[in-house]
C-alpha cells in the first residue's frame, strides 16, 4: 500500500452526533413557572411586516402572510389584528332599501353603528301606523263626500252625453234603447218603440228617412262613447289627487316624526322623502278591503291591489350589516371564500315556476362584514373557487362591493335580477398561503403586486442558542397552557427542544412549526395521563415521539424487513468491486425515513459516456441526471486531461422501481465508478451519502439524520459488527440530531460516522487503499486508487486509439504497452 496522501478522517464522537439540551441550564422546575410568550418565536421579519401592513393606511397595502403550514401564520395575524381592531372605531351599518325611481337598483343606506336594526323597526312601525291611519282617512266623511262628487260628476257627464243624444233622437221621433251590451235607436210609437209591423206599413220614403236619421244618431253616439275613456281617466286623476290630499296629513305627520329623528343623516332623509311621495301615490295599497268585497269605482270593479302585503315589502329595510357600537373594527375569517360568500348574493324565490327577487333578498358577503376592518382568507381556497379571486381583486381595485352573482356574470341564468348600488369598501385583506403561491401570483398576475404590497414571510426555524432555548421553553409553556395540558418538567422541555432541532433537521436550529409542536405536546400529555402523572416528563415526550414513529412506521419496517430477509439486496459486510451502499430518503404522509440502496457501476471501453440507467429508463429526475453528468466532468478533469476519455460506464440504483431524484447519491456513484475502474473492492460495511462537484469535493445533502438511521437499523437488524458506519458530507455535521440508539452505538464503538470533505477521503475509508496525490511530476503514486484509475483510463484510451487506427498497428502497439 502506498503512503496515504492525507491524514485519515477522524470519526465523529457522540457529542457531535446529537446536540443535546442540558436541562440543568433551566432554572424552572416545570413550565407552570414560565410566563406566556406574547408573540411567536423567531418571526421578527414577519411580525414587522404585519405591523407595517396593518398600520399602513394606503391603497394596495394588503398583506400576504406566507410560509409553510403550521408555523402559526393565522395565529400571529389574528393576534395583531385583534390588537389593532380593538383600537379602531366601529364602522357603519349598511342597509338596502327600495329604490323608488329605479326599482331594479336597490339603494344602499349607511347608518351609524347599531342604528340599522332600529331603523328597520322604525320603518316597520311606520308601515303599521300607515295601515291604520290611511284607511281611517279613507273612511272619513270628507273623503266619501268628495268621492261621490267625482263619481257623480263622471256619471252625470256620461249620462248627459247619452241623454243629449237621446233628446236629439226624441226630437226626431227616435227612441234611444238600452240593449244588453250597449245602445240602439228605434223609431218611436206612442210611449214605446214602433213595432215592426207598424214600421213596414210606413211609406218607403218615411222608412228611408228614419233609417238615415238613425244612422246619423249612431255616428253621434259613437263619437260620444269614444270620448268616455278620456272622462274616465280624468275622473281617475281627480280620484288620485283626492287620495293624496286625504292621506297627506296622516302620512306627512307620521313620516315627519321619523325624518326629525334621522335629520342628521342626509341619505336617510332623502329616502324618507321618497317614501312619503310613494306612499301618497299608492295610498290605496294600505286599505284593507273587507274579505270578499270587490272595490268598485264608477260601478266597475277595481283590480284588487296585488297582494297588499307583497306590495308593502317595498317599505322594508334589509339590514345587511349591523354592528355593535364600540366593538371596534371587524375581523372576518371566511373559510369558504366562494364568489358569493365574498361579495354577497341575491337570493331568489320561486313563484309560479319563475324565479323572482327583490332588495330584501340581498345577503351580505364577507367583504360587507369585514368592511371597515380586516378580512383574513386562505390564498389557496380563494384561488380554488371559480372567479372568487377575480371578484376579490375587483372589489379591492374599485374600492367598492358590487354584488354580481356567478350566474349573472357568466350569463348562465336570465331571470328577474337586481343591480344593487355598490357599497364603498375600505378593508385590509390578509391572504395566508404558501410561499410558492406568493411567488407564482407575483410572477403571473400583474395586479397581485399592486394589491398585495406587503409580504409577511414566516420562518420555519430559529437559531438555537441559550436565549432561544429559554424562549422556546416559554413557547412550550404557552402552548401547553393554551391547550389546557399538564405542565412539562424541564427534562421534558429539553427533550422537546431536541425534537425541535431534529424537526428542523439542524442541530443549530429549532423548528417553529407550531402545529407539529402542539401535536407533540398533546400526545405527550396523553401518555403522561395514561401513566397517571401530574407533570409531563421526558419519558412521556420520548414515548410520544416513539409512538408517532411507530404509527407511521409500516412502510419503513416492511422495507427493513425485506432487506433483512434478503429480498432487497443490501450487503453490510464483505467487499465488492463497483458496488456501494447509497442512501435515500422516502417522505410519505409527512414522515421521512432513510433506506439504503445498492448502487453499482460497470465500466468498459467506450466513447467517454457515463450512462445513467435511471435516466435512460426515465426513472431519474433532472437533478439526479445532473449529478451523474458531473461525474463525467470529474473523471475527465482529473484523469484524462490530455487524452480522450474512452470510457463507457453504466450506473444504476439496483432494485429501485420508482423515480430517483436528487444528487445526494452522486458521491456513492462516483465511489462505485472509481472502484470499478481501479478494480479495488469497496467495504460493504459502509453506506455513503453526499453529492459531489467536478473538483471531487463532497457537498451537503438533506435528510442526513434519516439516512444514517436508515442504514443503522439495517445493520442493527443483522447485528452490529463494529465495522459498520456511514460516510456523510463534512458540511452536514452541524445538522446531526441522531437518535439515542445511534449515538449509543457510536459511543460503544459499534457504529461509525465519518465526515468526508473530498472524494479522496471517502474512497480511502471505503477501500482501505490510499487515494493518492500527484507528485512533483504530476504522477499518482503507484498502488493508490487514483493511480489505478488513471492507468485504467489510459489503457482504455490507448485501446480506443488502436482500434481507431485500424487492425494493422493495433496488435504490436498493444503488446508494447503491456510490456
Amino acid at each position, binding site marked *: 500500500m502506498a503512503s496515504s496522501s492525507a491524514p485519515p478522517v477522524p470519526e465523529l464522537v457522540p457529542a457531535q452526533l446529537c446536540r443535546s439540551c442540558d436541562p440543568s441550564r433551566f432554572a424552572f422546575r416545570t413550565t407552570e413557572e414560565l410566563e406566556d410568550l406574547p408573540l411567536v418565536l423567531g418571526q421578527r421579519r414577519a411580525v414587522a411586516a404585519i405591523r407595517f401592513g396593518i398600520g399602513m393606511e394606503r391603497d394596495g397595502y394588503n398583506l400576504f402572510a406566507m410560509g409553510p403550514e403550521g408555523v402559526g401564520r393565522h395565529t400571529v395575524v389574528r393576534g395583531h389584528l385583534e390588537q389593532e381592531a380593538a383600537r379602531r372605531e366601529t364602522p357603519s351599518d349598511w342597509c338596502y332599501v327600495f329604490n323608488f325611481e329605479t326599482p331594479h337598483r336597490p339603494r344602499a343606506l349607511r347608518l351609524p353603528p347599531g342604528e340599522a336594526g332600529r331603523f328597520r323597526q322604525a320603518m316597520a312601525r311606520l308601515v303599521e301606523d300607515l295601515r291604520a291611519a290611511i284607511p281611517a282617512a279613507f273612511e272619513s266623511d270628507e273623503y266619501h263626500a268628495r268621492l261621490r262628487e267625482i263619481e257623480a260628476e263622471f256619471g252625470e257627464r256620461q249620462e248627459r252625453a247619452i241623454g243629449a243624444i237621446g233628446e236629439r233622437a226624441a226630437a226626431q221621433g227616435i227612441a234611444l234603447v238600452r240593449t244588453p251590451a250597449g245602445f*240602439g235607436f228605434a223609431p218611436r210609437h206612442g210611449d214605446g218603440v*214602433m213595432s215592426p209591423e207598424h*214600421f213596414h206599413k210606413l211609406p218607403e220614403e218615411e222608412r228611408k228617412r228614419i233609417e238615415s236619421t238613425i244612422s246619423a244618431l249612431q255616428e253621434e253616439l259613437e263619437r260620444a262613447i269614444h270620448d268616455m275613456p278620456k272622462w274616465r281617466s280624468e275622473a281617475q286623476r281627480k280620484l288620485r289627487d283626492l287620495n293624496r290630499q286625504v292621506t297627506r296629513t296622516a302620512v306627512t305627520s307620521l313620516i315627519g316624526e321619523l325624518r326629525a329623528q334621522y335629520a342628521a343623516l342626509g341619505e336617510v332623509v332623502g329616502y324618507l322623502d321618497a317614501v312619503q311621495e310613494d306612499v301618497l301615490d299608492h295610498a290605496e295599497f294600505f286599505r284593507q278591503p273587507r274579505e270578499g268585497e270587490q272595490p268598485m269605482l264608477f260601478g266597475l270593479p277595481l283590480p284588487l291591489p296585488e297582494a297588499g302585503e307583497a306590495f308593502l315589502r317595498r317599505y322594508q329595510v334589509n339590514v345587511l350589516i349591523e354592528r355593535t357600537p364600540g366593538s371596534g373594527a371587524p375581523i372576518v375569517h371566511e373559510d369558504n371564500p366562494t364568489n358569493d360568500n365574498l361579495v354577497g348574493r341575491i337570493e331568489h324565490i320561486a313563484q309560479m315556476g319563475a324565479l323572482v327577487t327583490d332588495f330584501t333578498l340581498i345577503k351580505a358577503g364577507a367583504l360587507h362584514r369585514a368592511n371597515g376592518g380586516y378580512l383574513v382568507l386562505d390564498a389557496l381556497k380563494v384561488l380554488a373557487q371559480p372567479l372568487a379571486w377575480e371578484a376579490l381583486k375587483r372589489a379591492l381595485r374599485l374600492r367598492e362591493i358590487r354584488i354580481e352573482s356567478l350566474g349573472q356574470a357568466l350569463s348562465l341564468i336570465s331571470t328577474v335580477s337586481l343591480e344593487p348600488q355598490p357599497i364603498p369598501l375600505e378593508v385590509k385583506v390578509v391572504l395566508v398561503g404558501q410561499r410558492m403561491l406568493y411567488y407564482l401570483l407575483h410572477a403571473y398576475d400583474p395586479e397581485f403586486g399592486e394589491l398585495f404590497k406587503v409580504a409577511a414571510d414566516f420562518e420555519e426555524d430559529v437559531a438555537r442558542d441559550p436565549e432561544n432555548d429559554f424562549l422556546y421553553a416559554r413557547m412550550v409553556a404557552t402552548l401547553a397552557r393554551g391547550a389546557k395540558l399538564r405542565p412539562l418538567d424541564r427534562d421534558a422541555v429539553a427533550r422537546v427542544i431536541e425534537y425541535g432541532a431534529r424537526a428542523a433537521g439542524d442541530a443549530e436550529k429549532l423548528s417553529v412549526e407550531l402545529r407539529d409542536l402542539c401535536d407533540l405536546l398533546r400526545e405527550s400529555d396523553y401518555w403522561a395521563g395514561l401513566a397517571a402523572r401530574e407533570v409531563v416528563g421526558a419519558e412521556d415526550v420520548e414515548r410520544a415521539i416513539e409512538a408517532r414513529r411507530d404509527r407511521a412506521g409500516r412502510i419503513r419496517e416492511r422495507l427493513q424487513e425485506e432487506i433483512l430477509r434478503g429480498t432487497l439486496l443490501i450487503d453490510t459486510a464483505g467487499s465488492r468491486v463497483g458496488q456501494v451502499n447509497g442512501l435515500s430518503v422516502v417522505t410519505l404522509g409527512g414522515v421521512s425515513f432513510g433506506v439504503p440502496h445498492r448502487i453499482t457501476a460497470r465500466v468498459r471501453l467506450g466513447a467517454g459516456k457515463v450512462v445513467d440507467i435511471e435516466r435512460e429508463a426515465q426513472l431519474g429526475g433532472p437533478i439526479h441526471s445532473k449529478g451523474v453528468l458531473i461525474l463525467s466532468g470529474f473523471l475527465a478533469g482529473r484523469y484524462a486531461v490530455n487524452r480522450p476519455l474512452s470510457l463507457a460506464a453504466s450506473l444504476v440504483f439496483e432494485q429501485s422501481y420508482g423515480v430517483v431524484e436528487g444528487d445526494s447519491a452522486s458521491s456513492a456513484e462516483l465511489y462505485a465508478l472509481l472502484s470499478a475502474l481501479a478494480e479495488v473492492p469497496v467495504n460493504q460495511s459502509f453506506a455513503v451519502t453526499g453529492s459531489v462537484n467536478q473538483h471531487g469535493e463532497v457537498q451537503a445533502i438533506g435528510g442526513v439524520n434519516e439516512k444514517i438511521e436508515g442504514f443503522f437499523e439495517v445493520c442493527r437488524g443483522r447485528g452490529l459488527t463494529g465495522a459498520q458506519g456511514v460516510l456523510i458530507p463534512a458540511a452536514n455535521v452541524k445538522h446531526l440530531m441522531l437518535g439515542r440508539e445511534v449515538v449509543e452505538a457510536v459511543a460503544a464503538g459499534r457504529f461509525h460516522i465519518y465526515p468526508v470533505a473530498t472524494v479522496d477521503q471517502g474512497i480511502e475509508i471505503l477501500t482501505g487503499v490510499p487515494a493518492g496525490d500527484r507528485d512533483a511530476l504530476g504522477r499518482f503514486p503507484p498502488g493508490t486508487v487514483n493511480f489505478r484509475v488513471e492507468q485504467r483510463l489510459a489503457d482504455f484510451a490507448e485501446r480506443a486509439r488502436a482500434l481507431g487506427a485500424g487492425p494493422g498497428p493495433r496488435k504490436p502497439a498493444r503488446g508494447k504497452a503491456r510490456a
Partner: protein
Amino acid sequence: MKVRRLIIGLDPVPRRWALIEEAVAAAGRMEAELIALFVENAALLDFAQLPFAREVGAVSAARRALDAQAMERSLRAMAGEARRMLEAAAGRSSVRWSFRVARGSLVEVLLAEAGEEDLVIATAGHPAEHGRAWKARVVHLDDPEQALAALEAAGGEALVLASEDVARLREALRRLARGQQRDPD
C-alpha cells in the same frame, strides 16, 4: 212599516245586479220574502225585430246588427245568469225567495206585482207618474238616508224606492237593514 215582501226588479243590464247581495241581506234582516223579477224589456224585442236594428257597444262603440232571435237568446241567458247569482247569494242565508221572468217595462211589471206591505226596489229613473195610478208610494232616492225615513212614514201601501244609481240603492238597502235591526219597532 213591517215589510212583508221585498221585490227587486232586474233588467238586462248585468252591472245593476250587484244589489242582489244587499237585497238578500236586507230581506234576511227584515224577515221578508224576496221576490226577484227579471224583466225582459218589450221595447227591446220590438227594437230587435226592426230591419235596421243595430247595437252600438257601450264601451267599444262598435256597431252590430241585431235580430229578434239573438235578442231572445241573449235575454234568456241573462235571466239564467241573474237567477244563478240570486241562488248563490240566497243559498248563504235562510231567506225565502223566488225568481220570475216577466216581459214589459220594468216599472210597470214591478208596480203590477207590488201589494200591501211590500217594499219595491226599482232601478229606474223617474217612475213618479206611475205611482198614483197604482196605489203605491214612489220615492225617488237622492240620498240613501231617505230610505229609512220613507219606510217609517209609509203605511200599508206598497213603497217603491227608485234610483238609476245602483250604488245608491245598495247603500239604501244596507241602511234599511241596519235601521230595522237597531230599532225593532
